[in-house]
């Protein structure tokens, strides 16, 4: 190992130690299920806003979008916009009403007025599917990142990293529960925002804070000229690819408010007003963050040459930090590189912890207890099962991530958003805003959205029939788009409507009054947990 590798590894270790200490401290404050699942519902708007940011701004965003802008210019920025606008769906339609009407998981607000077993099983299924796709994206990214940063391109290093990340996330979740996970996410959000702000300032200094100069240099240095600043380099090659991007944009905007690990964060605040404040903080943070990636991406395009980083662009951000920190070979450059790499590593850890927590909790609370124990298990038993499930899901994620390393990270992220937008969001919205919506509608909507989004991808050029496909030797692709959202999201709503209308359920309609009153007023909502 040379000095830079030791420095990078040292900072990684520091991040890991810090998060472990925080998790251990949180575990001492965790006793009941409200603590374990919902952090005692005692987090303030700012704290939860930071944690939402920490949960949401993934390594795929930080490294991926910076890299996409560095490689494709404007189209990378275009991609990032959907991730921000999406938060208005969460703010206006979901966060507060969900906080008031649910308890721990996404399924709670459906089970509130419907047959519990079928809707909980359906919601848990889509929760686990979305979380696993997203987990794989993060873990594959972690493996690639660490091996690139340490400059050791070996399968062993990648697999080892996936194993360590998996072990850490199991530790955070089983030991720290929601409190520990929340603290890890808050630390990560602060590290990520300050780390990227530092690089942004250093980039802007090089251009005397003149954005037009930065853009001009990026365009000149990119080799694409003015087209680098215009839409179309990545998504504009054909009409199909253009419609494909519109489909992706739709999934991004509607998927965010259906991501299970985001939804459960709204339960950690004492009131719906605090939940609203936390989303406002999150919008501020996330918006600022994507403006940062705009500068980072064009900065990388302007100051680095493409041979400085990998073909996927994932190293553009850390390499840019090295460049503006003083350049290759300088101590300050090496420190900046190690710093940003450690920030990216913290980013991965916080996101995988949130995903593991959500899915394990859904397995225990939505499937094991209502289906296998007839809803009679004590909270203590349920928490125990949740911890076991976290270990199981972690293990599954590790085992899947190792062969999944050939998959494109951006594709896995897009798929997670498409499933969330097609399976989860229609059911959530129809439940909160449509009196007649019922058990069959919810079950059809969730399974219908899930199967159509995953099914369309299966029959898309991603799976077969093209040179870059997973199975390039066969061709069973008939769906032309890589992103299913434009078809599967309307289908999710349609299945819900048909299911609802074909089997009216008077009790679900009557219980809607209670749901609506609770959702809008907070009367009878789960309160802050006090020891």
């Amino acid at each position, binding site marked *: 190992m040379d000095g830079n590798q030791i420095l990078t590894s040292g900072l990684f270790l520091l991040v890991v130690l810090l998060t472990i200490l925080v998790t251990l401290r949180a575990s001492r404050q965790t006793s009941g299920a409200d603590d374990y699942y919902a952090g005692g519902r005692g987090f303030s708007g700012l704290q939860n806003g930071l944690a939402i940011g920490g949960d949401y701004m993934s390594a795929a965003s930080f490294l991926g979008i910076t890299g996409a802008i560095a490689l494709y210019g*404007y189209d990378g*920025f*275009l991609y990032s*916009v*959907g991730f*921000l*606008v999406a*938060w*208005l*769906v969460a*703010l*206006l*339609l979901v966060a507060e009403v969900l906080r008031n009407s649910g308890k721990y998981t996404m399924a709670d607000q459906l089970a509130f*007025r419907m047959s519990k077993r079928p809707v909980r099983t359906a919601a848990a299924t889509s929760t686990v599917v979305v979380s696993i796709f997203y987990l794989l994206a993060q873990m594959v990214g972690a493996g690639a990142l660490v091996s690139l940063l340490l400059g050791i391109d070996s399968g062993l290093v990648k697999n080892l990293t996936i194993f360590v990340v998996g072990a850490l996330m199991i530790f955070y979740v089983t030991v720290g529960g929601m409190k520990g996970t929340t603290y890890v996410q808050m630390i990560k959000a602060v590290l990520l925002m300050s780390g990227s702000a530092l690089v942004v300032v250093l980039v802007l200094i090089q251009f005397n804070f003149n*954005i*037009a*100069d930065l*853009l*001009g240099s990026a*365009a000149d240095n990119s080799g694409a000229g*003015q087209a680098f*600043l*215009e*839409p*179309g380099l990545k*998504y*504009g090659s054909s009409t199909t690819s*253009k*419609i494909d*991007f*519109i489909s992706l*944009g739709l999934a991004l*905007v509607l998927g965010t408010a259906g991501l299970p690990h985001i939804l459960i964060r709204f339960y950690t605040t004492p009131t*719906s*007003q605090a939940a*609203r*404040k936390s*989303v*406002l903080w999150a*919008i*501020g943070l996330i*918006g600022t963050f*994507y*403006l940062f990636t705009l500068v980072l991406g064009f900065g990388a395009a302007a100051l680095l040459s493409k041979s400085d980083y990998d073909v996927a662009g994932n190293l553009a951000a850390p390499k840019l930090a090295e460049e503006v920190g003083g350049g290759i070979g300088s101590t300050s450059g090496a420190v900046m590189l190690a710093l940003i790499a450690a920030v990216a590593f913290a980013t991965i850890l916080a996101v995988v912890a949130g995903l593991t927590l959500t899915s394990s909790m859904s397995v225990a609370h939505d499937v094991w207890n209502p289906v296998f124990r007839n809803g009679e298990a004590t909270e203590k038993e349920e928490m125990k099962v949740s911890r076991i499930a976290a270990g199981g899901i972690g293990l599954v994620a590790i085992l899947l991530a190792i062969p999944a390393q050939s998959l494109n990270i951006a594709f896995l992220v897009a798929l997670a958003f498409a499933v969330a937008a097609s399976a989860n969001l229609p059911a959530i919205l129809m439940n909160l805003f449509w009196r007649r919506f019922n058990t069959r509608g919810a079950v059809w909507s969730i399974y219908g959205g899930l199967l159509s989004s995953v099914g369309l991808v299966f029959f898309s050029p991603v799976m077969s029939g093209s040179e870059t496909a997973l199975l390039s030797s066969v061709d069973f692709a008939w769906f032309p788009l890589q992103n299913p959202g434009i078809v599967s999201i309307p289908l999710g709503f349609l299945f819900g409507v048909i299911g609802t209308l074909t089997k009216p359920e*008077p*009790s*679900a309609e*009557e*219980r809607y*009054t*209670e749901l*609506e*009153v*609770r959702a*809008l*007023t*907070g*009367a*009878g909502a789960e309160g802050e947990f006090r020891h």
Partner: protein
Amino acid sequence: MSQPKQDQAARHDPIYDHLAAKDEFAQLRHLYRRFIIPATAVFMGWYALYVVMSMFASDFMNHVLFANINVALIFGLLQFVSTFGIAFLYSRYSTTHLDPLAKQLAREYDAELLDRAAVAAGNTTPGTTPVTEEN
């Protein structure tokens, strides 16, 4: 005040029917929907316009306004402005129009529960809120 019906789900509590029947609740629902429906239509339409024009209106989007700043960049940055703006407007609107109504209704809920607890404890002065039978 409606009586609980036979086919209602087991947990149904008539207290929610009382609250739902109040004018304040009708007003709260009206005010909430009056903001979120147009706001959602605006930001979804505005974002859809941005994405579709980025893909299909390159002449317009590629028009350079000054230096290296083109319409596409400004349009994208305006998405940030509109997102922050709608979030700010909703925050202000809900604080002034929605929260007072919601809090009042939640207080009435708490009062009715207290009255009911008092009745259950044998207190013969149940207060002013009418209490229906336990369900």
